[in-house]
């Protein structure tokens, strides 16, 4: 009985180690990733995101590339956030717009790939607004970007 507690703790840690890992894969190994975020307000006007939000996007999506490589890939986010309603203690917002991937190092008007997004995000407090909604959308945008990059880049040959 004395050993039960440590045995349970060890078993738990072992089991949790069996769960799938969640770290982002490096999908663009020969390039670093630069991000641009612009937001549309309710008057329809576009403006660059705040420095804090831009920094957060850059930090998040840089993980798809190699930090030490030359910048070749660019991700642009054109997004807006709109309040939906209160739902069981959370404030539902809808983040919509588009995400575009540019794989050329030169400025190009045409993206390599682009995808529209419409994501539901949930905020804890009534004072939180568009910026917080876009921050809350980051985990979902990661998935969208991962799909976008994988669709736009050739699949590496299988090792088998």
């Amino acid at each position, binding site marked *: 009985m004395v050993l039960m507690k440590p045995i349970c703790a060890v078993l738990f840690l072992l089991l949790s180690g069996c769960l799938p890992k*969640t770290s982002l894969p490096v999908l663009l190994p020969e390039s670093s990733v630069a991000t641009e975020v612009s937001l549309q307000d*309710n008057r*329809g006007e576009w403006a660059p995101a705040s420095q804090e939000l831009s920094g957060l996007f850059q930090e998040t999506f840089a993980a798809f590339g190699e930090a030490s490589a030359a910048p070749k890939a660019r991700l642009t986010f054109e997004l807006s956030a709109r309040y*939906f*309603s209160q*739902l*069981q203690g959370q404030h539902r917002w809808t983040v919509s717009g588009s995400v575009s991937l540019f794989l050329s190092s030169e400025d190009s008007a045409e993206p390599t790939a682009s995808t529209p997004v419409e994501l539901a995000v949930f905020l*804890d407090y*009534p*004072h939180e607004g568009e910026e917080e909604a876009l921050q809350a959308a980051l985990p979902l945008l990661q998935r969208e970007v991962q799909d976008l990059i994988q669709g736009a880049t050739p699949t590496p040959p299988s090792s088998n």
Partner: protein
Amino acid sequence: MRACMFGLAAALLASPVAEAVDADVGGYMRVSTRPDFQGGDGKLGYWNLYGRLLNETPWVALDSRLNLLEATPGSGQSWAAIHARVEGGSILNADANGGALSQMRLSQLYLLSGSSTASPWEWQLGTLHHWTGDLGLYDMRPDSLFDRTVGGAVRYRSDRVNALLAVGDSGYGLDAERYNAVLTAGGRLRVRVTNRLEVGLGGEGRYEPASPGNVNAPYLTPDLDMESVLRGEVLENFLAENPDGELLFPDPVATDARSWVATGYLGFGDIGPLNWNSTYVRAERLHPEAQTTETYNGTSTTLYLTELTDERTMWMLGNEMNLTLWPQALDAVWGVVLGRHTDGDNAVAPSDHAREYASTVLRLQAYLRPDVHVLFENSFAVETSTNGNAYRNSVGSIFQSQDGIQDDRGLEFGDADTRQTWQGKAGIVLNPLGPGVYVRPSIRLLYGVQVSSQHAAWGSSFIDSQNQYDDFYSDEDLLTDRHIHQVVALEAEAWF
């Protein structure tokens, strides 16, 4: 009013415009299995005062927004949308109601409209239920207004100021079976003073005018006393004093009825480990009850209760503090709820309108990995009946009341006026979207234990009448007090 809203929604959806309608659907679900081997219904305790976790039932909500007129941002075009919410607490095989649609309700339906997307003004027509935020640990909304009102409102939304002015009718909301118009008006103002400080005030007044001749309007039956009403002996006593005097029973007298709600909100945060603190206060004078029916010796009479139930008041304070104790490793949420309900008309019997309560809940969530968390929750609550005993501390206490003295005519119940409840909960949480106490979806495996001063303080199937004891208790040793309750739960919860 609700019929009009249904009609409007149906007409708009059936019109040719409906083909172009853009819709967005959100929602919420929680479902769980909590096999209970202690005769309970799967809930750890009686209610959310001990924290909502393990004390709540399944719930599902679908909230839709139909954009009837969608404006291009910056175009100056007007816009209109319909919000409709259907929700309820029954899921097949998860509760006693078997997922019946009769357990679901159309809890919100309103038309929202504005002159342009750039304008801060909006118009709302339909249900008006409005609240600033929730106490997430308790699933309570202390500052909710217009819970029972249908009407119209004008709203102002800007970065710093949110305001609402509303007027409507709460007649169906207060008593759907005996509708009488209850004029309701009020509003709310919330101001963000700085990015770290918000304050809000709100209020609602209700007035139900006298309407002689309308049987559903407020009346009072003269010379009623609370004790006789509670015992159901008003007619019996009257006939004892007036043999063969059924026709002499006093006629009701028309009167009016009033009630009100006042709320306050203080939010501040982004100070050290404190992410945000929300404080809500609520004071309310409850709307009087309308009537009840008594039958004696085959004669029935209606007693009109407005005067006997018009001094019920309550106040409540709720606070919830969200803390990051160790970034990306340990978060905490600490909640406190205090409340007092008084009934100036009733000094003789315990009730929900004569009680005090205090509760605190602390939840800690540690992140083993971004998607694997460990949850601990601890709660303690004290509930006191201010009109005498209301709780049974022992399995045998149903046979005594009023300080242990047998009193078959007593209005009290049990042998204690105070209930103390402690709950501890712990478990594993899987959150695919990463850290955060309220981040969902969540899959939870939880264990909970409750220790209460009350015997069998959870929804249970234990017998509680003397004539069943011989049938269900063959061995006297089985007559044991049950102060500890344990459950294990597998739950899923998501917003979408």
